[in-house]
């Protein structure tokens, strides 16, 4: 299909022209122009990182304008200047696996290159503003997102949440990723869902009507962590103590150093920290009531509008 007849896709406010099908992404709003902001191309990517980049790991190079990533047995990715991602698939790899890393690490690097603060979590619409839940893998972010969806709330983004210089969360695309155990707990049948990669017990759960497709100011950020304690506890975080949790919950924070973005990142965190309520949510490791957790967070939001 030629570049001109291919439909553009849309995520994070960017018009995307992709040679790899991205069925989970929406189409751009009709009024916009046809010029893509980001081009995704299938083609050769050199077997080493580009000149001027520094090697951050065995399969990872990053420089100020270029980012190079190799996922063995999947693909090599080269991200250029916030406007192009080259994908060089390894023989026999399936498109779902390519999409996982393209929409994850590669897109994360592209959003960094575009000057955004990229948080690892999910963003939920509350009124005309956004609430973001962050936390390390396994902290219960997607379970909580699913619980908010079940309560009728809309989601802006899952996993990768970019926040712009005006402290607005940008909408991603209408799906959340759910592990089988979360789905079972939420009584969501995964039989009709697409696995994010073949053989993985993690599923794409499409969010058809509950997607917030406009940028919203971030007002609250909740940091989820599990601790061996009896009750759900919410502790506001103030002053300089806001820095480390926001840094630690930055998406792929290790990329920043090679990209020369640590200084800019500190400033972005400062801008966001000045405008939000930041709360650490400690919950029991096992057997906590999901509805009680949602209620606690909603009560905190209501008390701190």
């Amino acid at each position, binding site marked *: 299909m030629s570049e001109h007849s291919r439909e553009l896709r849309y995520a994070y406010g960017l018009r995307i022209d992709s040679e790899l099908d991205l069925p989970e992404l929406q189409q751009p709003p009709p009024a916009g122009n046809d010029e893509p902001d980001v081009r995704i191309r299938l083609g050769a990517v050199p077997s080493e990182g580009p000149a001027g980049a520094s090697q951050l790991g065995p399969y990872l190079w990053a420089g100020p304008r270029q980012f190079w990533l190799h996922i063995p047995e999947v693909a090599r990715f080269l991200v250029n200047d916030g406007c192009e991602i080259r994908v060089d698939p390894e023989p026999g790899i399936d498109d779902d696996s390519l999409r996982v890393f393209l929409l994850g690490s590669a897109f994360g690097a592209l959003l960094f290159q575009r000057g955004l603060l990229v948080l690892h979590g999910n963003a939920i619409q509350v009124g005309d503003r956004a609430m973001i839940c962050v936390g390390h893998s396994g902290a219960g972010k997607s379970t909580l997102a699913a619980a908010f969806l079940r309560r009728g709330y809309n989601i802006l983004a899952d996993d990768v949440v970019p926040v712009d210089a005006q402290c607005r969360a940008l909408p991603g695309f209408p799906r959340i990723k759910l592990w089988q155990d979360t789905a079972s707990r939420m009584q969501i049948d995964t039989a009709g869902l697409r696995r994010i990669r073949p053989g993985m017990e993690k599923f794409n759960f499409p969010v058809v009507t509950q997607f917030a497709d406009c940028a919203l100011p971030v007002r609250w950020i909740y940091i989820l962590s599990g601790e061996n304690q009896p009750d759900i506890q919410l502790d506001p975080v103030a002053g300089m103590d*806001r*820095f480390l949790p926001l840094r630690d919950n930055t998406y792929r924070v290790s990329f920043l*150093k090679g990209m020369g973005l640590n*200084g800019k990142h*500190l*400033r972005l965190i*400062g801008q966001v*920290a*000045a405008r939000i309520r930041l709360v650490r949510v400690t919950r029991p490791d096992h057997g906590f009531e999901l509805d009680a957790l949602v209620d606690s967070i909603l009560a905190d939001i209501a008390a701190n509008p």
Partner: protein
Amino acid sequence: MSPETRVVRVPDLIASEMDGDLVMMSIERGEYYGISGVGTRAWELLEHPVSLAEIVATICQEFEVDAAIGEQDMRKFLEELIHRGLVQTVA
């Protein structure tokens, strides 16, 4: 350090206000530092070369601190900043 020793921030620092406190990073070392309370005011003064005595005078006036205690605290604070490589003495 003597009260007349003049000190100033080192150049390669990026600082960001965080809810009233300051978080700084050294670009060269990639390390982060935090300053809170009276220290944030002293840090403002350190933008241009300034002596310990001048800092103490300003702090004691603005925060109604006793001069002897102010000097003791600020000397300790500046020595720590010098030790961390965030501030340098000027000739």
